[in-house]
């Protein structure tokens, strides 16, 4: 597998490698688009979703230089079946109602967010690194004394009957399902896709926090509705060159 923005060139490379077209992994260009440097790794994950023990996989990528890696699938591939990876994410896609929205999301059409949209966010790298588990891994903590899961990571237990200090272990919420505790659709918040839909969610197994919701319409959102967490872009801080990513809640679709 190797990326290729042009189908003809992609095929020509296969010919030079002496590969059968049936051996090639789909580039995901027609379903996901051009994901840049993530592309070969996404193709590898997609290949592993269909892989059987003994399969041999060649991964190659190129840019200003090139890398090639050769893998052989082992029996342990059976242990990671049914992970929410490329296939499930593609299946959970939501079609946009209009092309203009797509242009707005991609920052290809000029958008007037109004004066509320003018507040610029400064993103210090030191803070991003320090908080990487909370922001990128949706990692909170679980109290070793009373068992209460809590997000974000706390040093003092939030359970009022416990309050233990520094008795925490890491606890990931990214793979936990949740239900909507409450929500709103906010027309005042600056957004390229108003209304901003967000709310509080209660996680299965404990823990509550508030999140932006995504891939949903206000009319379909209900108190008690099940949701799952999905890793999304939150903002682009252009002066700092930072794409801020974190987690949003989305209806469970696939």
């Amino acid at each position, binding site marked *: 597998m190797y990326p290729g923005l042009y189908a003809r060139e992609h095929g020509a490379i296969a010919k030079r490698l002496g590969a059968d077209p049936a051996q090639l992994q789909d580039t995901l260009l027609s379903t996901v688009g051009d994901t840049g440097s993530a592309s070969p790794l996404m193709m590898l994950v997609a290949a592993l979703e269909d892989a059987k023990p003994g399969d041999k996989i060649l991964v190659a990528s190129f840019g200003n230089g090139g890398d090639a890696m050769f893998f052989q699938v082992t029996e342990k591939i059976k242990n990671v079946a049914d992970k929410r990876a490329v296939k499930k994410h593609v299946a959970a896609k939501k079609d946009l109602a209009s092309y203009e929205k797509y242009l707005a999301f991609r920052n290809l059409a000029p958008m007037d967010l109004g004066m509320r949209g003018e507040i610029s966010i400064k993103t210090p790298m030191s803070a991003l690194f320090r908080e990487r588990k909370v922001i990128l891994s949706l990692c909170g903590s679980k109290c070793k004394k009373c068992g209460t899961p809590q997000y*974000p990571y706390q040093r003092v237990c939030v359970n009022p009957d416990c309050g233990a200090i520094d008795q925490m272990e890491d606890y990931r919420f990214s793979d936990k399902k949740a239900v909507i505790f409450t929500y709103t*659709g*906010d*027309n005042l918040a600056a957004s390229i896709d108003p209304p901003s839909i967000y*709310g509080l969610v209660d996680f299965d197994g404990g823990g509550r926090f*508030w999140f932006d919701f995504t891939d949903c319409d206000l009319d379909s959102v209900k108190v008690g509705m099940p949701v799952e967490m999905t890793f999304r872009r939150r903002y682009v801080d252009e002066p700092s060159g930072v794409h801020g990513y974190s987690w949003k809640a989305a209806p469970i679709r696939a």
Partner: protein
Amino acid sequence: MAEGIKDKVAIIGMGCTKFGELWDKSAEDLMVDAFKECMEDAGIEKKDINAAWFGVHFEEQSVGKGATSLALALKLPFIPVTRTENFCATATEAFRGACYGVASGAYDIALALGVEKLKDTGYGGLPGGPSLMGTKNALIMPKLTAPGAFAMMATRYFAVYGLKPEEGKRMLAKVSVKSHYNGARNPKAHLRREVTEEQIINAPIIAWPLGLFDCCGVSDGSAAAIVTRADMAKKFRPDPVYVKALQVALSSGEELMYTKWDGAHVETTYRAGKQAYKEAGVKNPREEISMAEVHDCFSITEAVTMEDLQFSPRGKVKEDIEAGRFNHDGPQPIQPDGGLKCFGHPIGASGLRMIYEMYKQLQGKVQLPERQLKNPKLGLTHNLGGFPPMNIVSIAIVGS
């Protein structure tokens, strides 16, 4: 158990500017206006003031950090001035500082003044949100606004008590109809027009289920108080107003991160209220509190506050609203001056504005006779700063 503040401090003068879009007034102008009225009312001179507390929330919109802007605007003669900031409780915190200052015996006379210039932002609603709360919050919190945060409490209230959206919205509309009625009759109020239930229900949605008239205005304005020790008060005037309770409670994180809070009430209001009643010796708030100015930033906030302050039983505020209990001619008038909804909401001044209305009502000195309530005994003021799961509440009870 600590003795508390009851009857140790008296208010001997107050001032409050008109609230609104005051394009031709600077923050300093507003401070001077409130101070002037306050000093004339107290009948004292500037040299009599021993210390001052100054509240402002969005300092970047108006005066900058610290307390120097107050000292400079009023030309206070090298006395201590302390800046307070605690969201919407900012002015009540300034008042609390002044009260504790005289109650301790450190000072004889203290000034509390709050101010906010908000309309220069050029837009409705408040600036800020999670984007101004540090990198972690900017990334993990929803991009919420105040209307959105309180709308979530309305959604939850409707779900917990089984109200259909149209029933819930009608209940909330009645809250705003009442405040517009009161505001329309108050010359110092920001929004002075009566509205109907139908107008409110059919208004554009700001954050579902809250519409335009479920949200208070944000304004420019200032309010001030002069306090002294209770035993000195009668030297200054025959009708001082006494402080009966001052309480503050802050969220512990339980509401936002633990799963016991029902989302249909504000825990801090309930806790601070309970403490305030204990401090003031109030046994039955529904009967004993004659009137109140509560933090009606949104109609839903006023509704749940009635339950949290034990004016209405849990889940039953709808019946009291429908019966007109909180109207100007009802048995327990709420927001007699129009509330945040119509008097307006300059954050750093609002707490003192509420106390100003209670003070004037208790003295029987409300500007227009038709606004005067009959023989009130105890008045309560309540501020809620922040969001329902993450906030500060301050409560003051005053009486004659």
